[in-house]
């Protein structure tokens, strides 16, 4: 009975409310849902990473907080960060310093609006969704640079310079690797791309593109072996050296949320999004995305860090030509078949 009633409201609402109000309300609901999702996902992800990396490193990771395998450890950590004193060093460029975490965090959250978690679970299906994702997430670079510059710390500045160089460079092969998928799907809508993979996932049609995407994607989110901007053994903590408490939490949250965006995009573009047998689409989507998260953790447990110049030459001399080759082959095959 209640379900019927809800369904009725769901159908009637758009007709009863004026259009702008309904749209705003819809976005509001989506936004709240996304915030909750990001928070829960990041809390889980950090715990998951600690456990996995712990076992890789012959440790056991968190074990005590919350009794069952330390599941509440990250919640406790988050609470601690929220309760910490808000320290703003005297020498910082105040407005830039204060704004930077917000810029990084907001741009990350906005991206979630277009991710199709399942057939109907999507904040907003834009007809150029993929462009939106990459365009908006690029703005995060500015936020990071603001943080590094505004901190007025030499390590932060070096980290920020590295971020700018790295993300700008790796965006090129990243987008090129995605272009192959556009050509196959004939659409820029994320939902459309997933639907186009109904029969065969693009990982099988675009294996090279997939590999390039994964490498460039990991570089985009600054994870090992590309965690050069925050290389702890060189730059202490890179751009967020001076940040603590809540502001640091925002950077941290954004970093993990960004990791999930990369994983979600890989799922949408190459692994057939929500497609999968037996389980509901949403579950498949999360499972596939978490496979990528696991991959990133695994890499972190295995590899040393590249040097900044080696990383750049790898991008421009190896990844970029390969991405072009991939594009060329895709185009040739498509025009002859």
């Amino acid at each position, binding site marked *: 009975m209640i379900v019927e009633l809800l369904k009725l409201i769901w159908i009637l609402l758009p007709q009863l409310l004026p259009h702008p109000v309904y749209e705003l309300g819809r976005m509001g609901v989506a936004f709240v849902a996304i915030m909750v999702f990001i928070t829960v996902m990041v809390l889980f992800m950090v715990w998951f990473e600690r456990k996995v990396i712990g076992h890789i490193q012959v440790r056991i990771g968190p074990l005590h907080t919350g009794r069952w395998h330390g599941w509440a450890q990250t919640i406790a950590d988050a609470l601690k960060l929220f309760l910490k004193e808000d320290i703003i060093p005297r020498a910082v460029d105040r407005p830039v310093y204060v704004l930077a975490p917000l810029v990084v965090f907001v741009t990350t959250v906005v991206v979630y609006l277009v991710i199709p978690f399942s057939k109907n679970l999507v904040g907003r299906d834009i007809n150029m969704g993929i462009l939106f994702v990459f365009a908006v997430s690029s703005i995060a670079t500015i936020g990071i640079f603001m943080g590094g510059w505004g901190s007025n710390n030499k390590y932060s500045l070096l980290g920020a310079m590295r971020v700018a160089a790295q993300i700008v460079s790796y965006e090129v092969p990243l987008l090129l690797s995605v272009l192959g998928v556009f050509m196959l799907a004939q659409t820029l809508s994320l939902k459309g791309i997933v639907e186009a993979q109904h029969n065969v996932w693009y990982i099988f049609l675009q294996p090279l593109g997939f590999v390039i995407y994964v490498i460039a994607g990991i570089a985009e989110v600054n994870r090992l*072996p590309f965690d050069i901007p925050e290389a702890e053994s*060189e730059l202490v903590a890179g751009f967020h050296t001076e940040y603590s408490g809540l502001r640091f939490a925002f950077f941290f949250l954004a970093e993990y949320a960004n990791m999930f965006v990369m994983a979600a995009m890989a799922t949408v573009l190459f692994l057939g999004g929500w497609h999968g047998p037996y389980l509901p689409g949403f579950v498949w989507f999360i499972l596939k995305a978490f496979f990528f998260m696991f991959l990133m953790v695994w890499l972190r447990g*295995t590899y040393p860090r590249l*040097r900044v110049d080696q990383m750049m030459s790898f991008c421009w001399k190896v990844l970029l030509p390969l991405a072009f080759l991939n594009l060329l082959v895709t185009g040739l095959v498509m025009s002859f078949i």
Partner: protein
Amino acid sequence: MSGIKTETLFLNMGPQHPSTHGVLRLGLTIEGERVVNLFADVGFLHRGIEKLAESRTYLQFIPLTDRLDYLAAMANNLAFVLAVEELLEVEIPRRADYIRVIVAELSRLTSHLVWLGTFANDLGASTPLLYCFREREDILDAIEILCGARMTFNYVRFGGVARDATPAFVEKCRKFLKTFDKRVDEYEEILTENAIFLSRTKGIGILSAEDARSFAVSGPMLRGSGIKWDLRKEAPYCVYPEMDFIIPTGTVGDVWDRYMVRVIEMRQSARIIRQALDGLPEGDSKAKLPRVLKPAVGESYVRTEAPKGELGFYVVSDGTTNPCRVKIRSPSFMNLAALATMSRGALVADIVAILGSVDIVLGEVDR
């Protein structure tokens, strides 16, 4: 780009920095990421250990030597004790000599293990650190059975060692050695065969044989530069002449060579310990000495091959219970001097790798 004013940046690396391995301050002048100039500022951990020796009896000074290179305290004990024994002119029981070699090599293993782990960590690979500490734990457990301590042992004494090696200790060592070689293979798998690791270490921080000689560097750094020099072979002490082992050397003198030398040395140390355990003779572990030690008037200098290089103790005796002067020639301090030469034109990230490959312990640098 002409018309844009650029200037070099002075970067203070340390004394609080994750990869200066203690309170070492590096002053870097950088141009972008490239290092134009570098100097090392030491002395933050100076405790005046050499001076402290003068107000202590010979025996009381042994625990202080533990605080030099605290990652291989047995080697420090041994070097000081050997220097004083030269003044005492005492006959050491063979069993004690064997035990000394065993503990010195165990110390070399712990030192190299910690080095390998932290070095890999400096390059961003955090996993080998934990792996290395797993093995180090076994060694420390074994040493704990032997002398009750895990870091600062105060174990090697004048005329022998503090306590005799028990069968439990021998058993523990054998058990550890059984798996150790396989574990080293594991590290090599994760590092030696890794392309990123290779690109971070090959051709970085080159120290030519000539420079190595003129800076008086020693230990794995000297051997990494291709000079075959190991005091265990060149000026043998204890029972090293009876042991069968090889001295690894590098060719180029880069970070990679120093890494490889240390890895091979670990395998060789394990070999030496095995031989020493097999040949461990029965008998006393300590020679009879007077309760109050008053070495003859004179001076002695003894150098030993500590894990980090040539560790020398210069002891002057005036015939009283306290040494008149003790001078410590510490390998870390001497090796650190070559840092600026090695890091000429390197990138900031390389500095971390190069400094890591020197293998310094600040307790020994500053004394």
